[in-house]
């Protein structure tokens, strides 16, 4: 962990949180005193070296806090007299956000599976099986000839013909397993099985649809969320809404010599799972890219260019900060 702390008229501290950092290089590119350097981003991402993504030069850092304000992953924490500038009125505010509407959510877990940062947890209670499978079944033992046709056919293994005497048998139905499909009833040569599926017979109208529903809660952890938009993309009921930190486009230079199969550095550093190698070439999915630029920085062939058109950071009151931040949206990718 890299950190700087100094006491003057007020106490100021800057702390880098490596777990949240992706090594995108935005902080290094905007630091007015050039006090931030990135570590070896790709080897760190691949777990080949145990180092921090960011190193802050304690001597030259002027503790202005711009890096912390502009980090799209909240990986830099800047405090004045113990208070985080993110909570202070005078400092910039991200309007990036991700939220899941628990009312609209159907708890399908598609977002939980897709989230590249494991930031979503779906806790769900399924309806009771007994409430969904409703019916009646009985075997007329007098008519039953113990032929075992029903036992062989039953798709739920719910019927067993049990031996009860020297040459006596009883056909037993396990009602916990039976789903009243009526296969046994149709196939019985002696019409010994009486069964009905209430759901089919009554066309559901007798039942309270509430009892068929899955209930639950979907929790999004803002500390690990990177606002990539995967949840929004994949949600079948539009319950997830994401506002990304930047607007714009990541473009791929088709002239450059991408060696996707052997290199895939871009894919390895991307925090959003936005990059796929298709036919040996890197393909960026714009819909889930946050335009952080980590991929562009690690690409040895300089195949990727980040063109940001807007930074969703409000309340930037300082003119000099505004000037520096505008370099992020000038389309240079740096």
């Amino acid at each position, binding site marked *: 962990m890299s950190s700087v702390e100094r006491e003057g008229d007020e106490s100021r501290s800057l702390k880098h949180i490596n777990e949240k950092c992706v090594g995108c290089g935005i902080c290094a590119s905007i630091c007015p005193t050039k006090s931030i350097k990135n570590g*070896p981003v*790709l*080897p760190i991402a*691949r777990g*080949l*070296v145990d180092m921090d993504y960011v190193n802050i030069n304690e001597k030259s850092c002027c503790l202005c806090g711009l890096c912390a304000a502009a980090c799209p992953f909240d990986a830099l924490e800047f405090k004045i007299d113990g208070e985080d500038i993110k909570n202070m009125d005078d400092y910039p505010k991200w309007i990036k956000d991700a939220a899941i509407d628990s009312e609209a959510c159907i708890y399908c877990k598609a977002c939980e599976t897709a989230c590249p940062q494991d930031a979503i947890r779906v806790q769900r209670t399924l309806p009771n099986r007994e409430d969904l499978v409703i019916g009646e079944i009985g075997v007329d033992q007098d008519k039953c000839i113990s032929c075992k046709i029903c036992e062989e056919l039953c798709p739920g293994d719910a019927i067993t013909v049990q031996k009860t005497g020297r040459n006596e048998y009883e056909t037993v139905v396990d009602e916990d397993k039976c789903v009243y499909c009526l296969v046994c009833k149709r196939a019985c040569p002696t019409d010994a099985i009486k069964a009905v599926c209430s759901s089919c017979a009554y066309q559901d109208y007798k039942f309270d649809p509430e009892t068929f529903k899955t209930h639950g809660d979907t929790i999004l952890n803002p500390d690990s969320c990177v606002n990539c938009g995967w949840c929004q993309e994949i949600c079948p009921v539009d319950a997830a809404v994401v506002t990304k930190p930047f607007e714009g486009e990541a473009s791929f230079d088709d002239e450059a*010599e991408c*060696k996707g*199969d*052997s*290199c895939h*550095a871009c894919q390895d550093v991307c925090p959003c799972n936005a990059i796929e190698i298709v036919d040996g070439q890197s393909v960026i999915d714009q819909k889930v890219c946050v335009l952080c630029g980590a991929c562009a920085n*690690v690409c*040895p*062939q300089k195949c990727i260019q980040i063109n940001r058109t807007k930074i969703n950071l409000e309340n930037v009151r300082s003119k000099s900060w505004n000037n520096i931040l505008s370099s992020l949206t000038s389309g240079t990718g740096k």
Partner: protein
Amino acid sequence: MPVTIDTEKCGKIENCPGEGLCIKICEKGALVEKDGDVALVPENCDDCDLCIQNCPNQAISKV
């Protein structure tokens, strides 16, 4: 065209700050360990240039 290793800048793997990072980062098997040194297998090199970018000694280049 395969990369070239500047043996003077490279030195022994045991002295490398990345502990032979180029060998670990190359997935084509174009860089291998040989008697404590990094050795190039030119026919395996795919020209991806990952090693050039990531060598902590700036010992790998293309002439």
